[in-house]
């Protein structure tokens, strides 16, 4: 940072600016990170269940935890980006089911290669995301209302259309159809050197890396922070606010498509009533991970840590042989603690800069 040493202010050390910078210790820099609170929380949860549940530290248990975290985490990443951009998506949970249903029913009814269904489903799901974004930017209504509307409509459509077409609330099995094995290895699970790996974990890691890259190192990432932190200021300097928001909704839709295909190609059939309530879980993971509910602040890695906490808690309770009814209580307490910790950390970090 000393490339432009100020020639002014003689009599003082030439690296005056750097000298003052030293006051920001690495520790304080770390404390300024949005995901710090969640990392502390994740370590605490890990230690806690390692102590109370003997089975928790087994490799198979940790794999289960990771799988649970990844299915949620895939959605939490784009939801976090959307929250940084200042908006919610309450339709994200049922959109996963919609995506799976479209893919499954299309392939079955047309007796086509499952990849055809998957591709059409991708287009339709992206369309749903674009619809959310367009409605939001055109009407200027709060995203809470817009996506609540989409959420209810999709819930109804999922059930209604599935019953109309299949006669039952679930789709027919497409497990014996052309292209299913290859699709299963992409979206369901695949085998490497004798061990079976859940594909969601790979998708999750890739999405985290991609989202982090976008957020921190691209123009679009800069715009995401800007539209969430001050849309009017962003518009005034030429940031395409509406386009940014629409693309963020389409990002959520893309992840919903991946999750939906995972559901379909892991279990052959899809229950049309699934997905309701998951949208809040995604938001919780993002908030635990340090996303500010008002937008403009947060990280993709934070959402991943939030998802990890979620996975550890949900499975840890089972390994500790407790009644799983306690899970929701833990989740709620975790959400409160993480948010409080985040607020406290941020205040401390900002007070002394």
């Amino acid at each position, binding site marked *: *940072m000393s490339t432009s040493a100020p020639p002014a202010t003689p009599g003082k050390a030439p690296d005056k600016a750097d000298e003052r*910078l030293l006051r920001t210790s690495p520790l304080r820099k770390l404390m300024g990170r949005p995901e710090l609170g969640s990392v502390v929380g994740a370590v605490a949860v890990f230690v806690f269940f390692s102590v109370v549940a003997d089975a928790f530290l087994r490799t198979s248990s940790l794999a289960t935890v990771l799988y649970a975290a990844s299915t949620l985490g895939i959605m939490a990443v784009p939801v976090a980006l959307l929250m940084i951009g200042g908006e919610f998506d309450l339709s994200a949970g049922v959109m996963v089911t919609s995506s799976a249903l479209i893919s499954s029913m299309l392939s079955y009814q047309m007796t086509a290669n499952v990849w055809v269904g998957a591709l059409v489903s991708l287009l339709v799901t992206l369309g749903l995301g674009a619809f959310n974004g367009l409605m939001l930017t055109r009407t200027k209504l709060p995203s809470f209302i817009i996506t609540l509307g989409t959420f209810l409509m999709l819930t109804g459509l999922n059930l209604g259309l599935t019953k109309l077409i299949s006669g039952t609330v679930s789709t027919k099995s497409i497990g014996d159809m052309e292209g299913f094995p290859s699709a299963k290895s992409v979206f369901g699970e695949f085998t490497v050197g004798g061990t079976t790996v859940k594909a969601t974990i790979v998708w999750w890691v890739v999405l985290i890396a991609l989202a982090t890259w976008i957020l921190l190192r691209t*123009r679009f990432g800069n715009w995401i*922070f800007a539209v969430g*932190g*001050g849309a009017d200021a962003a518009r*005034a300097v030429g*940031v395409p606010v509406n386009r940014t928001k629409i693309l963020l909704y389409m990002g959520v839709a893309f992840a919903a498509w991946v999750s939906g295909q995972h559901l379909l190609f892991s279990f052959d059939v899809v229950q049309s009533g699934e997905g309701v309530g998951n949208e809040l879980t995604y938001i919780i993971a993002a908030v635990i991970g340090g996303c500010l509910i008002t937008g*403009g602040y947060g990280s993709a890695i934070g959402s991943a840590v939030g998802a990890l906490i979620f996975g550890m808690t949900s499975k840890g309770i089972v390994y500790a042989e407790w009644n799983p009814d306690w899970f929701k209580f833990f989740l709620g307490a975790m959400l409160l603690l993480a948010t409080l910790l985040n607020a406290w950390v941020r205040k401390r970090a900002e007070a002394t800069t």
Partner: protein
Amino acid sequence: MSALVELDDVSKYYGNIRALEGVSLECHAGEITCVLGDNGAGKSTLIKIIAGLHRHDAGTLRIEGEETSLAGPREALDRGIATVYQDLAVVPLMPVWRNFFLGSEPTRGKGPFKRLDVETMRRTTRAELLRMGIDLRDVDQPIGTLSGGERQCVAIARAVYFGAKVLVLDEPTAALGVKQSGVVLKYVAAARDAGLGVVLITHNPHHAYLVGDRFVLLKRGVMSGSHTKQSVTLDELTRQMAGGSELEDLRHELERAPEPTHLGGHPSGGDRPAGRPRGSGEGPAAH
């Protein structure tokens, strides 16, 4: 040499409301044109016409001598007119360097590897702010942690860096204390010395007179005065700004108002010595 921006007999109507009528103004390179007016005088409308947010309904707008009508803020920016709004200059939670380049971020690399040139962004931000006399401790700190005056200055420095020829400043000192106002005015002068034309909107004649070369007074949508620095004194400017004869009326009214016997609270006795000093600075209070 023609003016950078010139308004000639410009009017703007919103339905049946006359927001602005017959206003003329010119802004030359290296000069500061101040637009003075009370609330509702039409200052915001004037700004919006110059910034390209609204089109004028009558009269002519000339940019560098060429008659034109701006289609939008983007066109205004492209023609070198940068507007710094009082309240929406920056995104508070973002680091200073990200704010500085917001909307015009430099990138390097190709295709999927196209990325922000973070090093250049950081270095340039520091250097440009330093050039304006702002010595930042850390360009990574959220811009919200800077003072209001510093934030205005960053916005001004940004406009200058991105090649603005005309800087339109909407009440840059309105929400600031005396000292910070001074700092901002210093940067306004620095921008002028860098060869920019500045349109400074304010309701403070003292600030305007400190830096201004031309003064346009607005009152209820019409131009009530147009002066150059040589042709007007601060007292005259203040008087016209405050409404001239209206101020006289106000003074009479205030003088007739009966003197309060005490300033609230419980008076401790009948004949207290003179209490707190009053802001008015008028003659001794008679009890």
